[in-house]
């Protein structure tokens, strides 16, 4: 298993390099550089000399391959460059924003798992009944709601009208509630549907028939035979969902003024702070790759048929 994990970690490197290259290439095509973007904002009136100096200082005039070469060399030493905006090392800037994003996405995924999976189970076990229909209507609605609109409505109801929770910001746990709630709806709906489908399929499997033939009560059949078998697939789906949740967190972070990687990404995109953009994206990709690895390792623990040699 250790050998497998190490191999997977090693395989992440080319993917990360490829992503870094891709992002780099995309932003090299940008017609406006950071300096002119700052100037174009209208906030700073910058004359040509200052512009030229900024370009030289940040090496923005060097040919593309030179810049990329420098970048890769820096990556090897875990140096992500300097933020064009704040002059701080990108690693520092990212470091400040990492934990809030982790908090938000983990809270949302945990909620999604805790609420969605049992819902899917119940819907499958009582298939055809009103519980099933109601939960599936809820699930498909959850998949159709625009994320920030949901966030906005939640904010409107709970913060502005009822005043129970703060409407934006970061600090104590009460600030986490609304953003996490909004973010968890989509993965929860998806997990509920997946779980239901998987459980229904397993309920008709041969080994479940054997279990019933043994004289087991339906509840025991579920507990001793159904749950573990379903969890393998559900876990894989949850892992995949994590990636999409990280993406959607961008919207929630912006809406609730949550100081995480997502809002940092959006801000640095509009100011063309390329090093920070690259750093954010790389960070997010690393998150996702790690969560995939975690899911694979967990699956191997649960399912003895999976052999990672």
């Amino acid at each position, binding site marked *: 298993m250790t050998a497998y994990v190490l191999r997977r970690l090693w395989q992440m490197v080319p*993917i990360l390099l*490829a*992503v870094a290259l*891709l*992002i780099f290439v*995309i*932003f090299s*095509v*940008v*017609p406006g550089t950071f300096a002119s973007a700052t100037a174009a904002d209208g906030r700073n009136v910058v004359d040509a000399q200052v512009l030229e100096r900024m370009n030289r200082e940040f090496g923005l005039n060097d040919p593309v391959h030179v810049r990329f070469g420098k970048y890769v060399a820096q990556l090897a030493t875990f140096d992500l460059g300097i933020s064009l905006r704040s002059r701080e090392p990108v690693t520092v800037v990212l470091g400040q924003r990492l934990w809030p994003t982790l908090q938000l996405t983990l809270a949302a995924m945990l909620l999604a798992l805790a609420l969605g999976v049992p819902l899917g189970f119940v819907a499958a076990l009582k298939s055809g009944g009103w519980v099933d229909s109601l939960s599936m209507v809820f699930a*498909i*609605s959850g*998949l*159709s*709601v*625009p*994320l*920030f*609109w949901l966030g*906005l*409505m939640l*904010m*409107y109801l709970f913060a*502005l009208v009822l005043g129970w929770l703060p409407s934006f910001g970061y600090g104590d746990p009460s600030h986490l509630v609304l953003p996490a709630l909004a973010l968890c709806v989509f993965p929860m709906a*998806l997990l509920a*549907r*997946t779980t239901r*489908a998987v459980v229904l399929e397993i309920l008709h499997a041969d080994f479940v028939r054997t279990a019933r033939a043994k004289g087991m009560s339906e509840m025991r059949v579920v507990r001793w035979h159904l749950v573990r078998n379903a969890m393998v697939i559900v876990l894989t*789906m949850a892992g995949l969902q994590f*990636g*999409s949740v*990280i*993406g*959607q967190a*961008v*919207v929630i972070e*912006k*809406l609730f003024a949550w100081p995480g990687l997502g809002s940092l*990404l*959006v801000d640095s*995109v*509009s100011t*063309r702070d390329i090093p920070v*953009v690259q750093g954010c*994206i790389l960070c*997010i*990709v690393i998150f*996702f*790759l790690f969560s995939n690895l975690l899911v694979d390792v967990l699956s191997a623990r649960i399912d003895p048929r999976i052999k990672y040699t």
Partner: protein
Amino acid sequence: MRLTRANLVLGAFLIGAVVIGGVLAPWLAHTDPVMDANLMNAETAPGREFWFGTDGQGRDVYSRVLYGARTSLTVGIVSQLINSVIGVTLGVSSGYWGGWWDDWVSGLTNMMLAIPSLIFALAIMAILSPGITSLLIALGLTNWSYSCRISRAATLSLKGQGFVQAAKMLGYGDVRIMLTQILPNILGPIIVIGTLGMGGAVLAEAALSFLGLGIRPPAPSWGSMLSNAREQITTAPWVAIFPGLAIFFTVLGLNLLGDGLRDLLDPQSKARV
């Protein structure tokens, strides 16, 4: 069976309503969605004159919602079309030919799947000037991985089947086999993925426009209508409610339609979710 039919009917109904709203917008709308902005009417509550109320610039929300349908549907359909074309082409060819081409495409797909699609689209929108064409490019280029994977898997399993072998023996060229033998058999799942993907595209457009990176106001897109809604939420909540509801019903319709189509066209789907 009953559920499939209910899904299809309800989904088709919702989408039909949206399509009619969009297509007939010039006749159904009450005002010009962009030009008729009377600040004196700003932030009027829904009533007899303005069915959905007015926004901060005094524009009729109802008319803007109708015109917004055009944008959202266009984005949904076209971007999904691009996705499907890219995904199917890459998937079928890599599954059929294998070898270095397959390795290359799989590597590319793995890389694509490592980046959350919204973030990728965000990055691309950042370098293109905002607007519908850029949006179509961004969404079209970032969401093809899933249909690629599915096409590839289906091609791999179809490749060894009798009718494909028979076509080979008849001397059919590779491309002809892919087009006439393999493609028709994967059409079902691809249509399902496409329909569900359209819903995703509409949601993505809304998210990107909200972040200021999609369609910018005053163009009447549902997403852009929501981008200012946050500030007005206390004074004029209807500005946010109606476009949001429009998005919700459109995506719901697409999801229902996709579900129904899946039961109809692809009942053995392992991807049943």
